[in-house]
């Protein structure tokens, strides 16, 4: 307060930075950070996911201030938020639809990584941290869905926790331990609330690790080749800050459409009925973002095999970098993989459709074919195509084709990346 002459703020920052290089690190990692100059809009989804994580935490904290995690009062407290709390409906709809947006963004982010080979050497660990984030998100979303304590909350919790009972010997004790009793009840709701509040901060931590791992070698790019020098990159700011902001504003249009004009479109009307342990809803369907996994679970008549397959469908992602034998990252230069990639997209979309329909007739058949393909894709096609395919020649560098168009070299280029 006493110090008002110009330069005081700058001097304080310098004083702190000398002792804790906070601003300097930010400047290095967000401002100067050399980024491939050819990133497409598919590279917007990483920052979008990060922003959604913040939105979810902020809206969630406000909801937590009004929510009561007891089986007697949870449903009514959500209605209290929706009806009586100022802008409570806004916070709740933003949080509820935000979960769907978050998953949509992350799924696009994952498929982008699959198409452009972002999981390959040297970014294997970056990818694996991403899979950890996905797992944490799934756990968080599932527990969050239980909190409103509607019919679908209750029965989804019952069905999903019961999956563990398929395990021999330890299955039932695990389920009792998860529930804190002999059915889903008050203790279950309390612990799910506590964990639903905790896990997002664990996600923040893993996201930071994800970022550190990302910044070790920098972003992959649509050509999938390494940066060869300063002409291949641009500083993150302003080039990608503005590109990310533009993408964010377009995304917000879609998000706002759901929040303001179709807030219950992605939800299930059953969840507007208070949880009733004595009455099973006509159909128990998970939220759309879990449907493909749900379809894999149901594709096998045996419960234990279904559960193991469900777990495998996610854990297989951890070993992708070693299943893929192709040294070429980007599908642009992989004439076979380029097409096979879309078969996986079709299989996953088909699984989503199967998960939303009662398992009868053709639905079962499609579910089984798609489940088979999902694993066939990773376990057989991934190693095989890498061996048999003849990739097209890679360009010499990112900068060459761009600069050939005729333009002056960059004024502010990043430092050349060291080669591993």
């Amino acid at each position, binding site marked *: 307060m006493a110090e008002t002459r110009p330069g005081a703020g700058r001097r304080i920052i310098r004083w702190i930075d000398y002792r804790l290089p906070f601003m300097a690190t930010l400047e290095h990692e967000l401002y100067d950070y050399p980024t491939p100059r050819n990133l497409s809009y598919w590279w917007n989804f990483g920052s979008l996911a990060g922003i959604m994580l913040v939105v979810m935490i902020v809206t969630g904290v406000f909801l937590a201030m009004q929510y009561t995690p007891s089986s007697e009062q949870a449903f*009514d407290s959500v209605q209290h938020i929706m009806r009586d709390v100022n802008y409570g409906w806004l916070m709740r709809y933003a949080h509820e639809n935000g979960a769907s947006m978050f998953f949509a963004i992350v799924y696009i982010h994952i498929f982008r990584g699959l198409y452009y080979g972002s999981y390959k050497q040297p970014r294997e660990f970056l990818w694996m941290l991403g899979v950890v984030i996905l797992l944490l998100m799934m756990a968080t979303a599932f527990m969050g869905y239980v909190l409103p304590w509607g019919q679908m909350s209750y029965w989804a919790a019952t069905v999903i926790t019961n999956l563990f009972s398929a395990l021999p010997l330890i299955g039932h004790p695990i389920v009792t331990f998860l529930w804190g009793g002999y059915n889903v009840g008050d203790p279950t709701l309390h612990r799910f609330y506590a964990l639903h509040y905790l896990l997002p901060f664990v996600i923040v931590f893993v996201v930071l690790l994800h970022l550190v791992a990302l910044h070790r070698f920098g972003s992959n790019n649509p050509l999938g080749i390494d940066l060869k020098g300063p002409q291949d990159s641009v500083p993150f700011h*302003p*080039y990608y800050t*503005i590109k990310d*902001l533009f993408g964010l*504003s377009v995304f917000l*249009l879609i998000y706002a459409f759901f929040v303001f004009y179709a*807030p219950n479109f992605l939800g299930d*009307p059953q969840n507007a009925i208070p949880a009733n342990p004595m009455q099973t809803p006509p159909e128990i369907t998970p939220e759309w973002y879990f449907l493909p996994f749900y379809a894999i679970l149901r594709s096998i008549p045996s419960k234990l095999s279904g559960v193991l397959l469900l777990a495998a469908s996610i854990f297989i992602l951890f070993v992708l970098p070693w299943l893929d034998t192709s040294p070429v990252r980007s599908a642009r230069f992989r004439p076979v993989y380029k097409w096979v990639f879309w078969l996986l997209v079709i299989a996953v979309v088909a699984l989503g459709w199967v998960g939303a329909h009662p398992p009868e007739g053709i639905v079962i058949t499609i579910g089984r074919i798609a489940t088979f393909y999902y694993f066939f894709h990773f376990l057989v096609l991934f190693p095989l195509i890498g061996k048999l395919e003849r990739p097209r020649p890679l360009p010499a560098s990112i900068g060459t084709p761009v600069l050939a168009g005729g333009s002056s070299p960059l004024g502010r280029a990043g430092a050349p990346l060291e080669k591993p």
Partner: protein
Amino acid sequence: MPLEMSRLVRLAAALAMLLALATVAPTYAQETPPLPHQQWSFDGVFGTYDPAALQRGFQVYKQVCSACHPVTHLYFRDLTAIGYTAAEVKALAATYQCAAGPNDKGQMYQRPCLPADPIPGPFPNEEAARAANGGALPPDQSMLVAAREGGPDYVYAILNGYKPAPSGVEVPSGKYYNEYFPGHMIAMPPPLSAGAVTYADGTKATVPQMAHDAATFLTWASHPNLDSRHIMGAKVFLFLFVTVGIFYAAKRKIWSRIH
């Protein structure tokens, strides 16, 4: 026990099940037709509730539906949002009795309701509601539109969906045939008949009119913030359109330096 079942018994059981299925099948074979979509004032991006329809709908609720259905999540004070004045709400609340207490003698007592009280339902608890309705539970109407696929269209279709049962379909006693009810056998007797309500605003009380008004009121009861949500949405969209434009122009300008 199942392990001891002989082959013959199992065969007999399977046959019995097939027979049972065959007799049940006609009821399920008649699919519920798709809900016809009605025109609602609150449809679309700029849709808002029609206050006159809301008040007429409340009148239908008060004089017809409230005999069996509670509106658990509605308070008297909420009714100012559908156009009643604070004084009118206070007077209306005073016509109901609310439980209060304990007083300084430790006794519970009844007093006229206040605007801050929840609107009392017709039954003190679920058991009483079931006992009075042949075992069926009339659902809470403050969440009904939110809790049904199709929302207001479903409510409207049910209220207009009473038909004589098709030949061959037997309607058990205490049940009624309704075209749009899942399984068609509904425990609610046809609630509306022409002129059941005398509208304060003079509108002719036909069954479709009352059904439409009641569905409008119940949509408001489930989604009381729809009006402000739609208005805020329009402002947000206006803001975002400008933002998208500015960011796009800025992105073009900045990237033109290296293109």
